[in-house]
């Protein structure tokens, strides 16, 4: 039976093969958990009308410069919030894999650390794409005019995907460092909520208190919102949107690389 062992060994797996296999694992899981999928989609549907009517009168405040409709102003904010609230949990799957033996199995296989990180991040990108489409269609159905047409919506989508990638990378890095669910939940809450509210998601920067306006300027969540909002406006400043997307992309790559590095710290604890 030595024949079985002398068979030509498989060539080394490419990054693409490993990445695809890891992504498939997550996508399949999504299909098998209809409850998770519908709750995720539901939050996309609920927040826009909810915050839209809650803060409706913001549009009447003197100095509000977000176009005539608050809903139109709010749409990119809700997209960014959804990205944060979904991708903030990306590290959870890693914790589950560590608690079972799946992580050990993956780490003793030739799987590249980059593929183990890029797969789940790509899965988050798929999720936020679906959610963004729902929110934009809903906004449109509720009477919002996206004056720049499909190009603007596309920029918003790209901003949302990059933000989700950035946050997922952060969440995965944290998961590999703290290694237990409780700490990851606490850390996620600590990051996600302030990032949402220290931005122009609900209110134009001019109306924010001074220090919050300053913080918002350096908040990547605000970059995604501003880029999306700019692109959806009547007269988009593509350059302003462009550099924010670039900065988000750089951050996403940086946290992804950080997550791949964090495996070393994790393995030192084994």
């Amino acid at each position, binding site marked *: *039976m030595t024949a079985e062992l002398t068979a030509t*060994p*498989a*060539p080394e797996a490419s990054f693409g*093969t490993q990445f695809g*296999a890891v992504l498939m694992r997550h996508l399949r899981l999504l299909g098998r958990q209809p409850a998770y999928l519908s709750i995720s989609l539901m939050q996309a549907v609920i927040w826009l009308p909810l915050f839209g009517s809650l803060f409706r009168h913001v549009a009447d405040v003197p100095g509000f410069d977000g176009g005539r409709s608050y809903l139109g102003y709010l749409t990119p904010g809700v997209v960014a919030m959804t990205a944060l609230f979904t991708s903030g949990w990306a590290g959870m799957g890693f914790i589950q894999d560590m608690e*079972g033996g*799946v992580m050990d199995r993956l780490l003793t296989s030739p799987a590249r650390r980059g593929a183990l990180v890029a797969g789940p991040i790509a899965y988050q990108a798929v999720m936020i794409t679906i959610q963004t489409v729902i929110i934009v269609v809903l906004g449109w159905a509720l009477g919002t005019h996206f004056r720049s047409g499909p190009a603007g919506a596309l920029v918003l989508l790209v901003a949302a995907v990059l933000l989700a990638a950035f946050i997922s990378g952060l969440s995965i890095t944290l998961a590999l460092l703290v290694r237990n669910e409780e700490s990851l939940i606490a850390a996620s809450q600590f990051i996600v909520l302030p990032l949402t509210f220290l931005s122009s998601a609900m209110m134009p920067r001019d109306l924010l208190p001074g220090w919050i306006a300053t913080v918002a300027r350096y908040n990547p969540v605000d970059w995604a919102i501003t880029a999306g909002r700019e692109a959806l406006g009547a007269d988009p400043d593509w350059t302003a949107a462009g550099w924010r997307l670039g900065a988000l992309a750089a951050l996403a790559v940086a946290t992804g690389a950080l997550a791949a590095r964090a495996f070393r710290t994790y*393995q030192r604890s084994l």
Partner: protein
Amino acid sequence: MPPTSSSAIRTVADEPPKRLSASGSAAPAVEAHELVKTYPGRRGAPPVRALSGAGFTVPAGTVFGLLGPNGAGKSTTVRILTTLTSPDGGRASVAGYDVRRQAGRVRRAIGVVTQKSGVDPEATGRENLVLQAYLHGLTGRAARSRVSELLDQFDLAAPADRLARTYSGGMLRRLDVAIGLVHRPAVLFLDEPTTGLDPQARSAMWAEISRLTTEGLTILLTTHYLEEADRLAARVALIEGGRIVVEGSPDGLKSELRGDALELELAGELDDSGGPGPAAVTRLRERLLALDAVHEVRVVGRRLHARVADGAGTLPAVFAAVGGTGLAVSSATVARPSLDDVYLRYVGHRFTADTGAGTGTAREAGR
């Protein structure tokens, strides 16, 4: 040189690995030297030294058993050899590759079955296998046919498309082994493969492991079941306190003990502790050791353990000697030496007692 299984296995590598043994025979599948690993203590506790200079050699194409109680350093050794973690000191090579400097090569050459199941419970058995195949670069039709072959081999064809979380413990373990074999590794690591299995699933797993060895695979098995090491491993190493205490073939180790294990249950005048009094024990030892065939007499409670050259043949003389002290024998057992006796000799106490179980049949209850 005939095409030995070991040289065939090594085609997994792109280039021939460096020969590590000076003897000129095939390079060993696993070589560990003076491995040291210390874990930082939690919350101010002192650091825990898991390994303090463990070393051993596994010849290619054999089953090697690493036997020791919980906490002896078995899993740490496996984690180092499978590149999951790095040693603080010492070096090791697997399939000819250094576990630290050539971790990628090692990972392509090994299959790993960890103590905790590596099965993704939310995927089917087939999907678990396909994922592993793709990670190893086995794709498309080649992956599908290899996966079907393994599902058949491990008797998992029927539940193949059910979610793994519906599997029984035995099925999960078989799937774990199948996952470890997808890429036809040179060395398979089995970390306590039968812990937690019921006796029936355990014997099925033993049969499966024995079958694998006939295919020329090198297997490193850790266990805290003496019987498992005895039955499956061509060589065993006893590990205790992060060190290898003794290494050899089970039969070789047992024959070094020279003689059978004799156990008597004493009756007659016993004191409060349930055994004969100190004076009686001294007399008993003297009389028994006066017999040529008898050495190493220990009395624990009402049980007497002795090592006897020809157990059955010496029994009448032993009975006579016991009778001469005024005690009687209520039962006697003569057994060929077991690995437990080897353990007793090298570590100083019984293996079974050490793992928190009693004697006798409690061997099964090591955990």
